[in-house]
């Protein structure tokens, strides 16, 4: 029982970290008014580049023009390129990133080894979330990002460059997605295989909607999704006879249900969603 709990806690954190990292990037992008659907490809590219160099590298593209199509296109491109670059690495493994047990806290039974014995990025992700929350809420940069996402016309009128802000947001989003991909390849899986991102990028997009564009809910959501992933392994390990395909589908089904419930109250959804999300904006002056 004890070991199962330790596995559950530490596995949840491990599975949630890449989701949280990428979702924070996507949150910034969407808050700036851009719907970036290329997370999957960016993560795949991040995974392979990260694997090849064992160093997190960001990847970024300018998402202007038709955002939906561009997102898909860059996503497909990223998946293809990652397959290409990664070909020579197929089946190789790397040493996992060093774990850093936190003194004192990691001594606590069950919770200690479960929560406080991880690689640095696992701790860093929630800290980054706090930073992101603070940045969006009470800094000048956060204000500009939100202004650009809510009303690009007004932001432009008071002299902020909408395109520049969005471009930078997409760069940050790409960097975070790349980091998440690299995390999966070098920390949680320690190997690279084609298709290893396995739809996590899409879950990230859904996660942001699930969190109604709020950082606090994003953290909770990421942990819930991490838990769902681990629960799948536990149920299989316990020999309960549920088709594994059904378990694999649970995060997707949960996402659809969550999106439906959250969108049902259209007014509330509109209040939370960045008003210009997915609309292209052209400055003509």
């Amino acid at each position, binding site marked *: 029982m004890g070991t199962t709990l330790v596995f559950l806690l530490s596995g949840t954190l491990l599975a949630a970290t890449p989701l949280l990292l990428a979702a924070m990037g996507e949150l910034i992008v969407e808050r700036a008014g851009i719907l970036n659907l290329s997370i999957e490809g960016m993560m795949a590219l991040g995974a392979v580049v990260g694997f090849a160099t064992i160093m997190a590298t960001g990847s970024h593209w300018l998402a202007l023009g038709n955002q939906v199509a561009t997102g898909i296109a860059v996503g497909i491109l990223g998946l293809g390129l990652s397959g290409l670059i990664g070909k020579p690495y197929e089946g190789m493994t790397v040493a996992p990133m060093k774990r850093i047990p936190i003194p004192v806290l990691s001594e606590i039974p069950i919770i200690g080894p479960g929560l406080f014995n991880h690689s640095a990025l696992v701790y860093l992700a929630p800290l980054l979330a706090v930073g992101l929350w603070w940045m969006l809420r009470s800094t000048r940069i956060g204000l500009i990002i939100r202004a650009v996402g809510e009303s690009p016309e007004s932001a432009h009128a008071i002299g902020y460059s909408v395109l520049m802000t969005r471009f930078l947001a997409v760069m940050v989003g790409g960097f975070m997605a790349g980091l998440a991909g690299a995390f999966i390849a070098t920390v949680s899986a320690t190997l690279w295989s084609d298709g290893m991102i396995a739809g996590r990028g899409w879950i990230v997009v859904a996660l942001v909607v699930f969190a109604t564009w709020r950082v606090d809910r994003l953290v909770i959501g990421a942990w819930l999704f991490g838990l769902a992933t681990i629960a799948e392994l536990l149920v299989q390990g316990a020999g309960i006879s549920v*088709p594994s*395909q059904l378990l694999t589908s649970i995060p997707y089904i949960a996402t659809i249900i969550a999106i439906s419930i959250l969108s049902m109250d259209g007014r509330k959804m509109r209040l939370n969603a960045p008003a210009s999300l997915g609309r292209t904006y052209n400055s003509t002056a």
Partner: protein
Amino acid sequence: MMRLPWIVEPRIGRTGPRALLAPLIAVVTTVVAAVILMSSQGVAPSRAIWQLYVAPLSSLYNLSEVLLKMAPLLIIAQGLAIGFRAKVWNIGAEGQLLLGAIGGSLLPLWFNDSVNPMMLPTMAMCGMLFGMGWAALAAFLRTRFNANEILVTLMLNSIALQLLYYLVSGPLRDPYGFNFPQSALFPQVAMLPSLFGMGRANVSIIVALLATVAAWIFVERSMTGYKLQVGGVAPDAARYAGFREKRAVWLSLCIGGAAAGLAGVFEVAGPLGQLQRVVSPGYGFAAIIVAFLGGLNAIGILFAAFFMAVIYVGGDMAQASAGVPYAVNTSLQGVLLVSYIGARLFVDYRVRWRRDITQQGVN
């Protein structure tokens, strides 16, 4: 906050020939990218061009492979384009295709010794209904709960794949198949008649061409097609004229789902001859690219589907003969759409340097 040194402004009065510019630029860019990618894999540039773009057309057999790949792309893209014009973003054609393949497989698996000539038409209907039903889930959630159809159809893609895996490894697995995750082979009446004596092309390409004609008539000549387009271009005007948005969502998704479902049936009843884990090499996603590359225009899509099919076949052949990884294919598809969208930006908008404008003064 720094300002960009250039501004982007819409071009006014876009004319016919210029509309062709973007797809042409995209095609050329893709060819160049192909040469670079293949060279990185150690293939000489001239050989790369030959492999990807000439070899697929060099013999009747290869040409029939191109037609075989073109058919599903063309059918799906025509269906999707109708929805895209109405700004209903169905990204779930891949899942709808899988459901179509599943639906189309039920009859030949249940009546495995059938010789009934109505088998194929019934399978086609069944597959279309399954694809439509899968898409209708997204339509229902969008119209009833306001759930974003992009995200829902995306999730449904993943769920459809898991459903297929479950069926071929469980309920629909061939009992005499040595435990391989695939169904029994279809009876002869469930197989599409082939088109030429040689090669694998079958009547699906004829159906795809008919679908193109139907799509053209629907979009250009029918009232419903017109309503859909108005709803996409000017939702407020459409509402004022009494065109209901919910109907547009339902119609768009059902047409797209039925088209993708039909393509799924054609895969299992054509080259595969059974239901297996891999039904489609990403036709559902590639068709999105085809729809855009064709300018959401029925005739444009015809050419786009042909070009995309050539890339598919060329990539397959390069993989077989030169050991180039299949990922080249996927990369080129991405390059194709990214460069198309990039080119559209420059065709639809003008980029001007700020410096020049200040010199001219405000105009």
